[in-house]
Every structure is written in structure tokens, then in C-alpha cells.
């Protein structure tokens, strides 16, 4: 869709809310659901990739430095990465903004 979702009016919708653009779920900001965000301690991280594999949202990507970072547009703050990290390198911190 061309407009941000919070600006779409009822008149902009297709009949019966039919979606004519495939793959537009990627535009949906599930990051809104988050109450905690994962913070990675690079001192402890050994770049094992387990956080990325366990992430149910598939939103943890490898950076150019080889570390892993959650894409906060999608990250729901579930904390599975922090729970699974064998090095305890990930801490969940309250979202306060």
C-alpha cells in the first residue's frame, strides 16, 4: 500500500479488504508489540548464530562486523534469543519511550 497504515481511510480499501499486492505483510510493523528489546554484549558474543536461528520472527540479521542484531521494525521482544544464547550475551531491557 502506498500510504502508511495509520493514514489509510475506509475509502482506500478494496472491496471486502481484498489485498491485491502480494507480500505486503513485510510492511506490517510487529515491532509495535514489543515491551522489551534485546541488547547484545559484544564482549560475550562468539557469533554462534543461535539467536538468529531461534528467532521466531526471523528478524535477527548478521551485521558487517559479524555480530547479530534484531531488526526492531519486526522484533516483538519475546526474549527467546536471550533465553537461548549459550553465552548469556543478550539482555532484555524495558522499552521506555
Amino acid at each position, binding site marked *: 500500500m502506498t500510504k502508511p*497504515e495509520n493514514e489509510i481511510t475506509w475509502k482506500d480499501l478494496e*472491496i471486502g479488504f481484498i489485498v491485491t499486492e502480494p507480500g505486503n505483510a513485510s510492511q506490517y510493523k510487529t515491532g509495535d508489540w514489543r515491551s522489551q528489546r534485546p541488547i547484545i554484549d559484544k564482549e560475550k558474543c562468539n557469533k554462534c548464530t543461535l539467536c538468529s536461528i531461534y528467532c521466531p520472527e526471523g528478524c535477527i540479521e548478521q551485521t558487517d562486523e559479524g555480530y547479530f542484531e534484531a531488526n526492531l521494525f519486526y522484533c516483538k521482544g519475546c526474549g527467546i534469543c536471550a533465553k537461548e544464547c549459550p553465552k548469556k550475551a543478550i539482555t532484555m531491557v524495558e522499552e521506555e519511550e
Partner: protein
Amino acid sequence: MAKRVGMEISVAISEVVKLANADVIAAYPITPQTHIVEHLAKLVADGELDAEYIPVESEHSAMSACLGASAVGARTFTATAGQGLELMHEVIYVASSMRLPIIMTVVNRALSAPLSVWSDHSDAMSVRDTGWIQIFVENGQEAIDNVICAFRIGEDRRVLLPVMIHLDGFHLSHMIEPILLPEQDEVDKFLPKNDYPLPLDPAKPVSMGDFAPPVIYSETKWAQEVNLRAAKEVILQCWNEFGNHFQRYYSPVECYHCEDADVLLLTMGSFSETASMTIDKMRKEGRNVGLLKLRLWRPFPFDEIRQAVKKAKVLIVLDRALSFGGPGGPVCSEIRSALYDEENKPKVVSFVGGLGGRDITVADFEEIVNKGIEISQKGSNKEFEIFGVRE
């Protein structure tokens, strides 16, 4: 020219579904709707109707199959009654929300328990707020005429909504009546082909019935509401054009001797036939009474109701369903609320009767009118009167 035939109304409905050239019928037989789907199955099996007949394992599946069929742009028909309508319930909302023009005859039947196969409107009232266009018919001719109209209304690009035609079980479904059955070319001239604008099509993929987070759900519901209200104009146009083609005109509210009437009775469905006989009798005796027949139930005809009752002193509404622990009759409750802010309005008296197939005779209607007038004068501390229950 239309043939005048003596035909069971259920069979006549199947015959017009054939004349409408339905593509898909998915249905599960249930009393008193059975004859409609039985005859349609026969028409398909005999090669008289070129359609897919899907004999599903439940009404929930029937409506689900109808969703899929309608979504690819097929002209889709089903029928059910009472418990079947209840089993279908969640999918009924999906049909209207997805704007799929499925046509369904609901052969009204009382709900269990205790088990009853006989007629009242409790099944219809349970689907009142599902977003379908809903029309109540009074006799066989109205039933078949409105099934033809339903296809044209529902499939109209300005509407694209499913339509329920409500007809009373047994009193209508199993009655043999003289019916003017139109010819194929007459129906073809009146009913254009179904042309759903955004069908499921591999060449141009769309997704239907999508997920809607809080940021968009309200917009989808408002779009649906605006659309259902706007459908009234198309319904009126369709009925008018149907009249021009077939010389039978329909309206949301039909007035029978009510122009100068002080006292109005309001009924919905087959009981309107009996009630009009009561009006004839009372008119002959010099009584100033009239009858309103409510035909269009959704979208509710607010303006027409207000217009029709504004000169009357008393309005007596008969409901064939009970809103337990609430206002009594659902129809009366809506009419009261439609009139609440009007300056000139009649006193409204609510009766509930005819439950589970209990008959209301010409004499009974006379008693209802007389009692209604008495209540309007003396007042009552009850929300509604139950008619004909032994104390």
C-alpha cells in the same frame, strides 16, 4: 410469457435458481428446507442445470464451500433452516465481510430446545447483525421473485453483498400455490451475468479474508456498514425494474389499507397474508385499521417506516421471535427505537406470538388488534405481551 403453474414453493425456488443459471450449489438438507436442495440436486443430476452441486457434510461446510465458489466469481446459491443456520453462523459473517454475493434462502424454523421443526423467526433473528441483505417474503410468488432479484442485487457492483431470502417453514416452503413462473428469456433479460470485480485468479493473484490489526479493522467494518446502507438504493431500483419487466412491484414496507388508518398492525413473513384477511374483515365492520408488511429487514428501512406510521395513533407489532430477558420482540424493539425521536408517532404495542409453528388465525389477529388498542389506552408495565400462551 410466464406460465401459471400450481407448484410447491420449495420446488418453484429451485426452478428459478435454475433460471438464474447458478454455477455452484453447496448445501446440506435440513427440514423444512430439504425440498429446495433435493430438487436442485435432481435438476443438476438430470442435466437440466449445468452447475456444480456440492453435497457437503454440514452447513458450516456448505457456507465455506460457497465462499470459495463465490470468490472465483461463480454464481452461488445455498439454502438452510433453523439449526443449520446456527451451525453455519461464523461463516455467515465471513461472507458479508468479504463482500461475496452468495444467495441463500432461509426457510425459517424455531430453534432447539425443545426440538421443533416448525416455523418462527428465532433463527432469522440470530443472524440479524451479520451484515447480509435480508428480505422476508409473504407467499410463493414473492419468494421466487425475490430470489431472482437477490442475484441481481447481491451481484450488483455497487452492492457485492450476500442476500438472505427468509420464508416461513411449512407455511410457505411446503405449500402448493399458483405461481407465475417466468420464462428463461425473461430472466435472461432481467438478470445480467455475474461479474465479480476481483475474483481469485492465478493470472492476477489477490488474497481474501486477510488479517487486520487494530489499526485497520475499524476501517474495514465502516466500509462494510456504509456499503450495506447504500445497498438500499440499489434494492429499490432493482424492485422497480423487476416491476417494469414482470408487472409485480415490491417495496421495503408494504401498506395495506393504512393511508387513513388510526390503528396499524405490523407483521413480517407469511403471517401478513392472514393479517390482511383480518384487516379486510375489520374494515368491512367499519374499523379504521391497516396493515404494514415489513419486507426489507436489512438494511432496515428507517425512512419508509417513519413515513408509513406518522399519521397512525397506535402501532401493534407482532414478532415471531423472543429476545430473552430483553425488549421482547426484536422487530418491535427496532421500530420503537426508529420512532423514538419523532415528534408525531403512534403508541407502539409489542406482541410476541406464533412461536414454533403455533398458528395465528384471522380471529386471533382481531384479538391482537383489540387488545393492542386497549393497552395503548390503559398503558402497561410490561415490555411486551405474549400471545396465545396458556396460563
